[in-house]
């Protein structure tokens, strides 16, 4: 057994296997370090018992504490969690219908040449750095909203910039989900004499549904994790917004703004919000993955 093992190691494959496995182990160690570092830095915030009220500090901080004032030792994350969700949902609400219709346009309406150009434009825009969208939002969108409804830097500005950022992704994934629907389904629908609108709405969209939803969830994850573009246009006031025109601060922006000088429990609370975001984004990616797999199965079986 031992001799065989050594033999194996002496062979070229054995060395490859061993060294690559070692490499993988090292990498996993590195990646685990990232997670462990995050958790250990966040730990004081997660476990510290609230001496005043007897309850768990995390619970108090998440739900009851009315505000985020590190100077006064108050770390209420609730307004920022709500702001993050509001910005994400708002962006999806705008980008999903528009993106979906553009996917339909690309697949069923656009001429081949125009679709090519349009795809190129969408790909280019999907690759534009978020800080450029932030710059554009700050210098074009915010002054424009200011004239109308000061202060301008607001929930609305953040939603508009983000929806512009995720639109190309949603349009492209919807188009490819529609393209991967089996041809027979489409030809069948035509053979049944269905109207074009009915073909698309009743046959093609349901068949491509899981792919579209998966793409949307990925876009939502991106929206939730986005930092710079939102930081630049949202005004960054910690509050639960009553209207679209009020400024908000999202979790990611909070980390970017306060990381530089946070110490002690304040710093731990930033790492804890990072951990929280990671879990949510991971959950979203996992859902997208499951749905994407479903779509592939569907495509294969038909």
């Amino acid at each position, binding site marked *: 057994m031992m001799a065989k093992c050594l033999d194996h190691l002496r062979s070229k494959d054995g060395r490859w296997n061993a060294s690559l496995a070692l490499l993988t182990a090292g990498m996993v160690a590195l990646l685990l370090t990232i997670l462990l570092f995050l958790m250990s830095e966040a730990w004081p915030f997660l476990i510290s018992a609230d001496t005043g009220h007897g309850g768990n500090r995390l619970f108090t901080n998440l739900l009851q504490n009315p*505000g985020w*004032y*590190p*100077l*006064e030792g*108050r770390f209420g994350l609730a307004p920022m969690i709500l702001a993050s969700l509001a910005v994400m949902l708002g962006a999806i609400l705008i980008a999903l219908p528009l993106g979906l219709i553009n996917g339909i346009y690309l697949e069923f309406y656009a001429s081949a040449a125009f679709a090519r150009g349009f795809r190129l434009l969408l790909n280019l825009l999907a690759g534009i750095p978020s800080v450029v969208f932030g710059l554009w939002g700050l210098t074009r969108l915010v*002054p424009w909203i*200011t004239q109308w409804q*000061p*202060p*301008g*830097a607001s929930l609305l500005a953040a939603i508009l910039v983000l929806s512009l950022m995720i639109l190309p992704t949603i349009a492209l994934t919807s188009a490819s989900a529609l393209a991967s629907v089996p041809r027979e389904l489409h030809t069948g629908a035509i053979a049944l004499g269905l109207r074009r609108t009915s073909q698309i709405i009743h046959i093609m969209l349901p068949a491509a549904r899981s792919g579209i939803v998966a793409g949307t969830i990925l876009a939502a994850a991106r929206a939730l994790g986005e930092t710079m573009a939102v930081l630049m246009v949202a*005004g*960054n*006031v*910690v509050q639960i917004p009553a209207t679209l025109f009020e*400024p908000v*601060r999202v979790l990611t922006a909070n980390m970017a*703004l*306060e990381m*530089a*000088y*946070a*110490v002690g429990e304040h710093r731990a609370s930033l790492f804890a919000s990072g951990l929280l975001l990671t879990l949510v984004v991971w959950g979203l990616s996992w859902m997208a993955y499951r749905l994407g797999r479903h779509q592939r199965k569907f495509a294969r079986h038909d």
Partner: protein
Amino acid sequence: MFQRLTGLLLAVALCLSAYGVQAADNRLILTGSSTVAPLVLEMAKRYEQQHPQVRIDVQTGGSTRGVNDTRTGLAHIGMASRNLKPTETGLRVHTIAIDGVGIIVHRSNPISSLSNTQIIDIYTGKIRNWKDVGGRDLSITVVNKAEGHSTLELFLNYFALKNSQVRPSIIIGDNEQGIKTVAGNPGAIGYVSIGAAEFSQARGVTIKRLPLEGVAASVAEVQAHRFPLARPLNLLTGKSPSPLARRFIAFAQSEAVADLIADQFFVVPR
């Protein structure tokens, strides 16, 4: 490709090991207050001209960052536009200039002065429109500083406010960001370093400073010890700074940089 990439990796590893050599006594890293940074940057440029082998890096982020980075060793020297708090031990303070904190509004704003009560009412959200203090019918955009900046702490202290009482419309970080925000919004009010504000105004930025308790927010009034909201601009080091850090601080406190302090609209400490 693998060999080439391995080579690259090796090079990176070499760089890593070379770090020990690199960290010799010819570079200084300073971080902290955005009020102090522009001044120190000018001082650093002059110091580098006189000592070509020395490299000085200056980064902003707020006074508290300066304190933290000096304590963790990320920076050789911290910059803080305030005095140390009782909890911030183990540091030495070297004052290089004096500055004030002034209220600024957009240049087109007809208001020429605000009382302390009015300022407090604006910042706590009791007054939300300029017409309530004798101005135009325009809603007020309250610009507040992010926590960790000493300008915020001085402002709150002076007006006996807690940050949780302030009802801001926009939160900003550095002085420059505050000036840029106010200059771009006719209904905005903010508070920034007087030095930074005068410096920007001298270059035509559309802001104006309001007097505080009837005293003009100007370098001259800060120099005469009349302006009520003044603060020291400090450099921070550990208990035993490196020889280069010591030399640089001596340089920053010497007559050789008095003109730079005046150019940035700060006051030389006496």
